[in-house]
């Protein structure tokens, strides 16, 4: 039976001699939503890009549902990427396309469905995230929160098993944050598995069951919210409740 998880084992990644990840291990099981925590620049987004094959580790092993994907050619990744969608930090909507074309992009590329079927799916996804009236607008005409919601609709369009979120609430007002959190919870109710990277603790606790914390290129903690709060490690507590000692570190 096919393994139902994304697994990273002993993954090392360096850029220009700087170690970003060292012997990093993580498992994302189907149905268990996880958040990767860590300070800015700690390598959280790198983890998402490694799993998606956008960058390649120097050593270690990454597998999706039991299929190893480490250091394979770009063409080999395309099949695996169908199982995953990502909501980038800035939305990464295609400037030259309308909201509708952005959301239906993968479906148009696959070419399996008719124009009418794609339009129906696009409308349904935009309705789900509450921006259907923006169908014919261009990304430049949208607010930050709307861009993120359109990016979520695009991620949903191809019905992936896993959805990654890269700092989904950064730069949003409280209502925008509430909308995103509520959308993520609805996605989980719909059976999607989410992996989020953030340093926004309230959002993380509102949407995830398990947490990983990166500190100095390594996995410093892995566990539930209760275990995280009770963790005796100084660097974990420093992250949860920064003190004057954290100034300019």
């Amino acid at each position, binding site marked *: 039976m096919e393994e139902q998880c994304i697994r990273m084992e002993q993954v090392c990644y360096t850029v220009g001699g700087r170690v970003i990840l060292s012997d990093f291990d993580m498992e994302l099981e189907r149905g268990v939503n996880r958040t990767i925590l860590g300070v800015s620049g700690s390598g959280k987004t790198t983890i998402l*890009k490694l799993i*998606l094959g*956008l960058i390649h580790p120097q050593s270690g092993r990454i597998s999706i549902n039991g299929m190893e994907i480490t250091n394979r050619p*770009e*063409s080999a*990744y*395309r099949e695996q*990427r*169908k199982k*995953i*969608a*990502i909501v*980038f*930090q*800035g939305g*990464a*909507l*295609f*400037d030259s396309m309308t909201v509708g074309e952005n959301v239906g*992009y*993968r479906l148009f*590329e*696959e*070419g399996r469905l008719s124009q009418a079927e794609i339009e129906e799916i696009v409308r349904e996804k935009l309705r789900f995230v509450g921006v259907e009236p923006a169908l014919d607008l261009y990304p430049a005409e949208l607010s930050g929160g709307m861009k993120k919601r359109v990016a979520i609709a*695009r991620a949903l369009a*191809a019905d992936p098993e896993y959805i990654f979120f890269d700092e989904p609430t950064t730069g949003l007002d409280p209502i925008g944050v509430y909308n995103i959190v509520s959308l993520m919870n609805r996605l989980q109710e719909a059976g999607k598995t989410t992996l989020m990277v953030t340093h926004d603790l309230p959002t993380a606790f509102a949407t995830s069951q398990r947490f990983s914390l990166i500190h100095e290129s390594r996995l410093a903690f892995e566990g539930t919210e209760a275990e995280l709060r009770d963790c005796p490690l100084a660097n974990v507590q420093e992250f949860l409740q920064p003190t004057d000692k954290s100034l300019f570190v």
Partner: protein
Amino acid sequence: MIRLSAIDQQLLQFFARFQAFFFLAWQAFVRIFHKPYYYRDFAIQFDKLGFSSLFICVLTGLFTGMVMALQALIQLKPFAATSYVGGMVAVTMIKELGPVLAALMVAGRVGSAITAELGTMVVTEQVDAMRVEGTDIIQRLVTPRLKAMLLALPLLTIITDAISMLGGYLIASGYSISPVMYLSTFTQFMVPLDYLEGVTKPLVFAFLITMISCQTGLNTGGGAEGVGAAAKRAVVLSSVLVLMCDFFIAKIFVVFR
């Protein structure tokens, strides 16, 4: 662990970039014949790269043809050979200046635009988003631009050549040279191989400009400042390579003449 000196590292980086350039160029060329063809993207790029450069190419051709004729007539007049001005303008423009000037105009105007557009897509993670959505980014972003440029630049060069001939005639007519006399000297100065040279050059230049611009754009880093620097680098490199390649292509045609 082997420690490389700074010069070795620079050399390694240079060869790595060189290798990456040829790899991208080969991949983009092969994909011209593979599905999906992205006709819409091709049409958009042809409009952006071709039609939008038409006006500057017409202006460049007109004034270059006029100045070529003017200078030639001054030199030919003491020898009573002003009737040869048509042939002189034709040989200079069709073989050399037409292809080079059109390519330099397009490199400055379109090459920088390609780099800036792709560079912005890279820094805003749009290229990563496309890859995640299962798109072959060479097929989607590079090949339509290459196809459009391979069609547009030769056409622009032919137009530049034609307009420069017209500009040359406007000046020559002031020296009592008839249209028939102006055109008849073309065949005295030009052989069929020269026309082939005039079309081969823009094809090579189109390939170079597009691939350098795309390669530089897709390897952009460092935000808005990085995009600006990449656009500048692409234009300088394209322009220098156009001039260098012009010599080597001319040399090859001289051998076969």
